[in-house]
């Protein structure tokens, strides 16, 4: 039974205050239990063109694609825009250039990709046009205008990434002009790209130890990686991650996931490849050739 006239105003005040604080703290607790990610603003820095390799240029393109360019906000597997990461953009570009719906002036894929970033409505993939435009107007913003503001160099890097990620030759030339300003790699307003920063973190993120013996854990499912460096050179290790079905180790079956090349960032791939090939024998001439030949296509790993 409730007391009819229970408290003085002061007593009610304190009880109510305690209730208010308690409920407010519940909401605060929930906010603090959720994933804590900050969206950093682009910070401009200079690129040392002298030290720029095609690998790092492609890596820059990927970072821009997932960061400052905010491409992955829409170009993902959520169906908002064509999933570029899951498509071979060179093949798609060639097909679109032949399509009668194409309204641009490009004659090759590189020019088409650049054109599509500067004037996205030159070709709108069916089903992805603005509502009511019958797929003639793209909702995509022009990338060299605000709020994205990619520079010429940055657009070239993104094109290089789109070409390289599926193993196609990169036709974009490395920039040679005066240093240009580009965005820092960690820049992102999109869903966070959480790149592992150590080989151990990469192995944990992709569950390598679930099948392979490595890093003080043992598993008989796949070949041991403790001695990987004695059997494979650096490029072979890289290939076995990107395309595990290419060479199947004797005594094992083809069961390794084929999508690590898509899922891993270039940095993560480099970290784990460097780790597995650490202390390997000095590169043979064959290795050197392999390295040189892949400088323009390292992006295929992605």
């Amino acid at each position, binding site marked *: 039974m409730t*007391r009819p006239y229970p408290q003085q105003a002061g007593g009610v005040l304190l009880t109510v205050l305690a209730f208010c604080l308690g409920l407010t703290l519940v*909401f605060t607790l929930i906010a603090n239990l*959720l994933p804590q990610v900050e969206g950093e603003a682009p910070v401009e820095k200079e690129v040392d063109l002298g030290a720029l390799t095609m690998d790092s240029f492609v890596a820059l393109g990927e970072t821009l694609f997932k960061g400052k360019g905010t491409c992955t906000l829409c170009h993902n597997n959520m169906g908002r825009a064509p999933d570029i990461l899951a498509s071979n953009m060179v093949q798609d570009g060639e097909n679109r250039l032949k399509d009668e719906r194409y309204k641009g002036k490009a004659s090759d894929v590189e020019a088409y990709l650049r054109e599509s970033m500067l004037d996205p409505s030159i070709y709108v993939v069916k089903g992805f046009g603005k509502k009511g435009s019958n797929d003639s107007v793209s909702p995509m913003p022009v990338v060299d205008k605000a709020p994205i503001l990619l520079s010429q160099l940055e657009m070239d890097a993104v094109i290089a990434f789109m070409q390289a990620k599926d193993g196609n030759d990169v036709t974009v030339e490395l920039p040679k002009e005066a240093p240009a300003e580009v965005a820092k790699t960690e820049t992102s307003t999109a*869903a966070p790209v959480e790149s592992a920063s150590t080989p151990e973190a990469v192995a944990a993120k992709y569950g390598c130890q*679930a099948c392979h013996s490595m890093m003080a854990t043992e598993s008989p499912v796949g070949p041991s990686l403790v001695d990987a460096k004695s059997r494979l050179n650096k490029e072979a290790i890289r290939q076995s991650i990107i395309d595990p079905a290419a060479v199947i180790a004797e005594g094992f079956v083809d069961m390794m996931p084929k999508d690590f090349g898509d899922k891993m960032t270039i940095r993560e791939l480099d970290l784990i490849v460097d780790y597995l090939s650490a202390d390997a024998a000095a590169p043979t001439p064959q290795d050197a050739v392999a390295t040189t030949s892949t400088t323009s296509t390292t992006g295929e790993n992605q």
Partner: protein
Amino acid sequence: MKRDILLKPISQVPIFKVTGLFIIACLMVALLSLATDFSPITTAHAETVAAADAAHDSGHQEAVLDLSTAAPKLKREDYPSVGVSSRGLVWIVAQLHLFFAAFVLAVPLFVLVIEWVGMKTKDARYDDMAHEFMKISMTAYSITALLGGLLAFSLFLLYPQVMGYMMRVFDSQVLVYALLFFFESAFLYIYYYSWYALRYGNAKWLHLTIGLGLNVVGSTLLVIANAWATFMMAPSGVDIATGAVTGNIWEIIKGPLWNPVNLHRFIANIAFGGAIVGAYAAFKFLSARTQEMRAHYDWMGYTANFIAILAFLPLPFAGYWLMAEIYAYSQQMGITAMGGILAWLFIVQAVLIGTILLAGNYYLWSGMSRTEGSKRYAWLIKYIAMVLVACFLVWVTPHTLILSANEIKQLGGSHHHLLGPLGIMPAKNIAVNLMLIFTFLSFQLYRRADKVATVSYAPALNALMVAIYVVAIANVIFAGVYYGYFTNTVYKVGSSVMQVVSTLIVIIAGVTIDAFLFKDAKKLPSIWGQVTNRSQYALFALPIAFTWLMALMGYVRSSVRTHWHVYTVMKDNSPDNYVPAIGYAGNMMTIATIIFLIMVLFIFWIASLADTKQANPEEAQS
């Protein structure tokens, strides 16, 4: 007695005190803005003008722009530092000002309606209640003005370049705002202090007219201030490349998001105001010392809850419109809010809205104990509660989970095979629409509890009402499941319209059918004050959740600009130009909410203190 006001020294009359404070604040703001405008041009602004001039001279500018109004390109050193986070300071002060402003603009809106109802029904209870609502908002009004002045000072002190640009863009419109505030003060005080002087006959009409004037001015203030916020989100009337003004003031004000924000804030303010006065009624109810007072404040709490929930029901639809316009303006901005870094905030939003709906429903169920007639419907309550809780759980199910590699392996992916589908929008649309429909059902049952229909066609109307509920619920579920999971994205969005229409039909049909059904109905006795003390805490839960929700959604609205002061026009290069983590943002919201709640409780206490009279010791002795 009311004429005493004319006999007091001017500084002792509250109206002149507060208005005087506000005028001083306005004058200082105007002076600061003029100082910002005419002070020697700062480096950042000078560089922008020089660059734009150069572009202009070299023929790159196609149209003639007034480059003196261009947006400056700021560097880190252009932001004054006071040793603490400038954004943090402005965040708290702005949020507090907005809480109070929303309250004082909303209360006169429903007070006017209640006063009009009192006049039409000749029931003095309505008139007294309306006056008491106004009494609460009077103290809040002076706090709003003080916080507004503090906010202006903070902005001009900490973001002088940004405010300088905003002043150049909005120009004399800012002074119109200040002038309107003067009129608002005048209308407000005349409306409140003339309440009993203009209570009957034609004088009442005059009083209502003053109230109407108060609301017209108040709503105008609201939409003017909204224009500043929406300009920063989706600028119009300026050159995007330089930020220079190209249009007239109307073109600047009427950006693509202005009207959606106007509608959303207008409705939300009413819900918020209703919730706050509901808490006041609950406070008075709990501290009441007579049955008469309990009955009065129980009725007041019921009315306030009615206002809050009634305004809250259409709010999600106004939110849909706002978000649709954001997507239409910039798909990138829309996805940043709904699918990007801010997306997790909507889990917190689900918790808050779930709290509001559960508290609102609980209060209605508790209130049914006021009448014996409610026993007819008591069996339904447990089913309504089950649906609400189930929908709430669906709503808070996240889309993706942060998992370790081992957990991903055990789960077979980052999405649970059963719960994963509940994390996407179609499931949440079903949940929120069902929660609204069942909340309306609670409300309808409550309204029916003390009535017995006497019309001959009552069974037919009841059957029709049940059929409408069944069809609407089936439609909401079908549209969500079929179009949400078995068709592409375009249809997913379209299906939400079907669901919203179904919900609205239930609400409109329910109100209409009940109007006919209970014509000449038999009224069962209803005893005001016969509710549990526990039920009153639902009336406190509502404003707490509303306040936190306002802070949360305001944060989302502002943060979609990411690293821009004025989106696409003026970059934010301050040390705080990143989107903070949810935990930090939540802590800031909590700080603002707690300060606000303490101030509101202080207002309640002051209001109750005003009713307390000390006994004359000499009379007691004799």
